């Protein structure tokens, strides 16, 4: 078990795993997302109050879930990097940050566009919306730190510390709708309770959520591999790869 983990934590071992797994993840992500989109846009019933603008849920909820999941994963990777000095953890955190920022933006944008017909406004400074905007700024901060500090070690440490401190925002996002009066309604997707919608609305959402998570896995595996190649380009095992082509 430990030996296996050790092999995975080595760039070379992870590289081999990534090469084997990532095509499946990409394929699964594409399939699930295409199925979920067609199902959600064309076949799921409209909502009794919101009509067809309800269909925005099929991008809004997966994007918002992913935005937070990616951040938590980055924070765990940051902790592993800071404490155990495992470089692979930092490479993975680097690899997933842009997707996290993109998903946060997508959640905010689709929420704003959904808010216009349902709430009558595209933005309010309510606790859920504001904490989600803060998440976007945290992502920008992490990306900017890595961009500005070219020196790998210091950039990695600063970005990890920022990510870890920012993780406090995640429970605030989660519980904002319960702790305070907000315009945003309580959570749609929850592990503990039954979904508040019938299955012909909920199943496409589940498919979309799974598709988004597969994409997260695919992007992380592939981009971590690129990061390994970039940082270890002069190593012998990497040089040996060129014989096989890309």
């Amino acid at each position, binding site marked *: 078990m430990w030996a296996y983990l050790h092999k995975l934590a080595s760039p070379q071992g992870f590289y081999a795993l990534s090469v084997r797994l990532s095509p499946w993840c990409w394929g699964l992500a594409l399939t699930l997302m295409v199925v979920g989109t067609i199902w959600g846009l064309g076949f799921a*019933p*409209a*909502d*009794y*109050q*919101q009509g067809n603008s*309800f269909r925005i*849920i099929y991008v809004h909820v997966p994007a918002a879930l992913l935005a937070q999941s990616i951040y938590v994963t980055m924070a765990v990777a940051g*902790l592993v990097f*800071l*404490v*155990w000095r495992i470089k692979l953890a930092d490479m993975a955190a680097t690899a997933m940050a842009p997707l996290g920022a993109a998903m946060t933006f997508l959640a905010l944008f689709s929420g704003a566009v959904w808010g216009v*017909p*349902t*709430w*009558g*406004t595209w933005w*309010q*400074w*309510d*606790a859920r919306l504001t904490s989600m905007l803060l998440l976007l700024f945290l992502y920008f901060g992490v990306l900017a730190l890595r961009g500005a500090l070219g020196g790998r070690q210091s950039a990695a440490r600063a970005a990890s*510390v920022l990510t*870890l*401190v920012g*993780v*406090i925002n995640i429970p*605030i996002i989660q519980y904002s*709708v*319960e*702790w*305070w*009066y*907000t*315009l945003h*309604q*309580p*959570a*749609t997707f929850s592990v503990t*309770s*039954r979904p*508040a*919608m*019938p299955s*012909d*609305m909920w199943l496409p959402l589940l498919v979309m959520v799974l598709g988004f998570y597969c994409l997260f896995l695919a992007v992380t595996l592939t981009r971590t591999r690129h990061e390994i190649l970039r940082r270890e380009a002069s190593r012998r095992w990497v040089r040996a790869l060129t014989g096989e082509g890309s």
Partner: protein
Amino acid sequence: MRRQRRQRLQVILAMLVLAAIAAGLMLYALRSNINLFFSPMQVVAGEAPMDRPIRAGGLVAKDSVKRDPQSLAVRFAVTDHVESIQVRYRGILPDLFREGQGVVVLGELQPEGWVRADEVLARHDENYMPPEVADALKEAGYAPEDYRDRADQSPPPAGTQPDAGVE
């Protein structure tokens, strides 16, 4: 080496705990300002300021909506099932606006206790269902909002219930 790791872990955890405490204190100090709106109970208790615009939120009371046939002016009451406040508004209402719907109104609280609204926003709950299901529920004597309660007996969502957020 092992001790070094443990030290690093302790430093990071301490940093996290401190940051969490700081954030918690800040949120606690700001707790009333983070609420997007006042409930009718709070407005009646005099917690809402008179000198600046406020947001008040609750449900549109049943049979309270009175539209002026000549203009866009409308009057309605916002209630949390305990207290209710009168709202006067002139303008276009959101599609979701109807009696029993959650709303947030932005406006000035008048000394007589009613709100002159500049903006009316609709809240909605986390229950989604096709129109047929909503009709069937209504026929069976349930409100569509009961869907989730009937499904798993979980408490109603915050803000649609008088004591939400107060406890």
